[in-house]
């Protein structure tokens, strides 16, 4: 087939046709994937909450409320876990901006008295193989069952009680800070009655 002449009309016309066709295909795909994407995000959040708090029978994602951070510059999302009408724990979505690259986002589960139940890493951009090891149980388990009231969340190098990951002190520090921020905000007024 002979190529079309590159006249102004032909050029404009063919580009318009290409653009219209592409955008209709995209609109269609967007419509059919919108639901599954929202579902997947919700399921991911629910899974993180289930991982860090005791068993519950409410819907923490729907019961979510926000608490201000200690310095009141931002707010954290808190997901209460309720079993048979009593608060059995709270999952707090917290972060630290002081990671090696970008924010470190954690989901920290507290028991009602402020003891750390479990921690799950939501999102981070730390170095693979170094900072990313904060997701290993070996590192995370040292926080379990500790109450930040008598457990210093700073790394040992800074006078605290946290064993830093080798080669990733900055990440370990950010991890501790994120947990500390969640704890402080929670104890300061985020408690669910």
């Amino acid at each position, binding site marked *: 087939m002979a*190529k079309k002449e590159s006249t102004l009309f032909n050029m404009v016309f*063919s*580009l318009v046709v*290409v653009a219209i066709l592409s955008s209709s*295909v995209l609109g269609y*795909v967007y419509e059919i994937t919108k639901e599954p994407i929202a579902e*997947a995000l919700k399921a991911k959040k629910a899974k993180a909450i289930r991982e860090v708090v005791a068993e519950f029978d409410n819907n923490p994602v729907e019961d979510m409320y926000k608490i201000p951070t200690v310095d009141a510059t931002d707010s954290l999302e808190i997901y209460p876990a309720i079993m048979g009408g009593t608060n059995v724990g709270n999952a707090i979505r917290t972060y630290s901006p002081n990671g090696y690259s970008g924010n470190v986002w954690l989901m920290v589960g507290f028991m009602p008295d402020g003891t750390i139940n479990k921690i799950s890493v939501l999102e981070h951009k730390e170095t693979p193989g*170094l900072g990313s090891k904060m997701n290993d149980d070996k590192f995370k388990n040292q926080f379990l069952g500790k109450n930040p009231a008598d457990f210093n969340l700073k790394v040992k190098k800074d006078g605290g009680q946290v064993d830093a990951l080798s080669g990733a002190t900055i990440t370990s520090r950010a991890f501790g800070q994120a947990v500390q921020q969640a704890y402080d905000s929670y104890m300061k007024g985020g408690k669910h009655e």
Partner: protein
Amino acid sequence: MNNVQTITKGFIKENPVFVLLLGMCPTLGVSSSAINGLGMGLATTFVLLMSNMVISLVKGFIPDKVRIPAYIVIIASFVTVVDLVMAAFAQEVHEQLGIFIPLIVVNCIVLGRAEAFASKNNVVSSALDGLGMGLGFSFALTMLGIIRELLGNLSFFGIKLVEADGILLFILPPGAFIALGFLIAFVNRIKKTA
């Protein structure tokens, strides 16, 4: 060139990564584990296959002077489709690959094949070319991923083989260059004897 050659040339003879040295950015960026390499490779394969087919279908209707913008719009649409579908149905891999999925648009392999092959050949051979090139790209990325994961993390497709730390260098970008260099040398050797 017959159809079988069109599809197999992407593996060794004209492998986009090892021989043509195209698409280095995603190659080095996402090949830190075998599964990431494979995911990226398959996403690119889909885009290559679809865009090659569509471009060879519409080549007669697009005036020469605006062909590149038209090709890019077509490629970008398929990449967005892949991006949305992966976000919906393969959340884990999508998160790992992150920014590299939208960047398939500017992967030189895709536009390269559109310009060098699909705009001059019929639909069937363009589809085969896209498939072959895509599979060659996946093959290269997976090989690189397997090697880097094995040396850097002592695991194979996420399964830990030995409970110990690997050579960290291979997970980091410099390790990607070193591993790629050795693979290219190896492929050159095979090409010479073959």
